[in-house]
């Protein structure tokens, strides 16, 4: 297993609840795994632990294995090698990842030479090759351009090229297409998909958009209040989502087709770090909650079709696609 996170719990002094609670997650080589959640769900924190970018004063239990090495046990040189080599991260805003006064080519050359194994001439040739590999036209010319001369989509390609420089095996994409226009997002996703195929990249794809994750990934984890509440094959998620939160997300997200379905909002708001829970964190917003849910510590329950869902009432919940009664459909124009 390329990435294997086991029972990761991360606490901060002063926080009312852990940022992450018993998170377990796996990504195989060549696999695209989605990590979905709303703000404060812990999805980005999970990704950062893979690079051991922990908040200061954080206390961590559990293991984060990348290719069998426990990242949390690494230190000094080992950690630097890990960050520079095996794993690469692509963030939401490409502009903040690039130095605005330097040429985009220099950004790549720096990445390539930082490992100390490549001289500048080879690095330059390699950088141009990478710019071509991420689908930028005229890579020679792009090499000499500065960030303000390129569009957001092109810059995100440059950042991806930078991520590929060290030939990583695992790519962490943290909302890396969220700031882009929808047509540009599609281009970047097509690029990521082809890179995965060419390079057998494992990918952890973090997004707030459940439909995007389910359409793009092989498997999807859904997080809520620092916990993984459901994990399934992406295809089955549309039709066989089981956790009430996942079903709630599907029911409240508008879709292009299926417009006769009225949007069914989840009541309440996503929990903040100051909210504490004695049991299932979703219980207060859950239509199926019983008083006992308030004291039931969530644990993943295996699902018949593969995957898990952490819900106490799993046996009694509806199956099949999310279908809500058409309630408040407005009068036709």
């Amino acid at each position, binding site marked *: 297993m390329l990435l294997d996170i086991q029972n990761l719990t991360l606490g901060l002094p002063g926080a009312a609840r852990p940022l992450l609670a018993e998170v377990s997650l796996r990504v195989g080589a060549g696999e695209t795994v989605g990590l979905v959640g709303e703000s404060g769900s812990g999805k980005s924190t999970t990704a950062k632990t893979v690079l051991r970018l922990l908040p200061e004063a954080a206390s961590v239990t559990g293991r984060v294995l990348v290719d069998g090495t426990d990242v949390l046990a690494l230190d000094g040189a080992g950690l630097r090698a890990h960050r520079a080599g095996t794993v690469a991260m692509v963030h939401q805003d490409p502009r903040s990842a690039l130095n605005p006064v330097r040429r985009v080519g220099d950004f790549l050359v720096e990445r390539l030479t930082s490992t100390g194994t490549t001289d500048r001439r080879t690095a330059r040739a390699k950088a141009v090759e990478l710019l071509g590999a991420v689908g930028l036209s005229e890579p020679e010319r792009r090499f000499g351009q500065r960030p303000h001369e390129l569009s957001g989509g092109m810059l995100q390609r440059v950042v991806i090229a930078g991520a590929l420089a060290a030939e990583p095996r695992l790519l962490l994409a943290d909302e890396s297409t969220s700031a882009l226009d*929808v*047509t540009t997002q*599609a281009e970047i996703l097509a690029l990521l998909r082809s890179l995965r195929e060419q390079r057998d990249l494992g990918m952890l794809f973090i997004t707030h958009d459940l*439909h995007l994750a*389910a*359409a793009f990934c092989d498997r999807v984890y859904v997080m809520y209040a620092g916990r993984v509440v459901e994990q399934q094959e992406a295809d089955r998620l549309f039709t066989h989502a089981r956790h009430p939160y996942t079903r709630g997300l599907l029911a409240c*997200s508008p879709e*292009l087709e299926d417009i006769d379905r009225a949007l069914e*909002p989840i009541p309440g*708001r996503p929990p903040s770090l100051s909210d504490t829970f004695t049991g299932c964190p979703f219980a207060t917003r859950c239509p199926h909650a019983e008083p006992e849910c308030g004291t039931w510590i969530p644990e993943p329950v295996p699902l018949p079709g593969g995957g898990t869902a952490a819900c106490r009432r799993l046996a009694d919940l509806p199956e099949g696609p999310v279908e809500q009664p058409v309630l408040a459909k407005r009068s036709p124009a």
Partner: protein
Amino acid sequence: MSAIETRPEAPLLVADGLTKTYRLPGGERLTAADRVSFTVPRGGSLGVVGESGSGKSTVARMLVGLVRPDAGTVAVDGRDRATRPPSFGRAAHRLARAREIQMVFQDPYISLDPRLTARHCLRTSLRLHGRDAGDGRIAALLDQVGLGAREAGARPHELSGGQCQRLAIARALAVDPRVLVLDEAVAALDVSIQAQILRLLDEIRRDTEVALVFVSHDLAVVRHITEETVVMRRGTVVEQGPTSRVLGAPEDPYTRLLLASVPRRGWDPADAERARAEADAA
């Protein structure tokens, strides 16, 4: 409820030939909006969709008067918003215009005055328009958007993003507008909160017969809550018509590209690539 029977033939909001050009540093000119025209009936709902740089926000700002169009007019109930009736003073004209069209902005936190509590915020709006600004009226407005007594005394930074956006909607409703322009008003919210706000807007539209102009990059949202859609690209309207037709059976290759780019069940990013090739060929 019976909006259909009483709806008069004349549209409520008419945007006619709205054009705005900006001069860029370096002497170039950017046409942010080029002869954009549409109408919205009383209690109707129109979506303006497009990507960044399409000019949809410029159109929204021209509707409410934050940007003065180079050409074209905005009329509500047949009255041109730009011309002041001779009987009106400047301040009276400003307030009368405000009662025609109100706006809700994208970022819920910075679109509210940081110093004012929710109650104070609404009182400011009500007083400005000489309305009853008593606690009862304020509580009723807050209740209409799903906020309670606890939120009434809170400042924006003590509220969640969704609560702030509810307050911003209440502030707009305080002046009883005929049209509500929403500029990416749910884009910054979490998915579960977004649905709450969309439902709230739908309820408000049914209860008050306010017309909505929904400016958004999100085609699925527009598909859900609008009846008519305008698709913009680089300042021009590429397609407009009933939402079900424009987003269900689009004629323009660019609209098709937009739709093909939206991730959904069984979607492949390669679909979008094919649509792009068609759009570029057209």
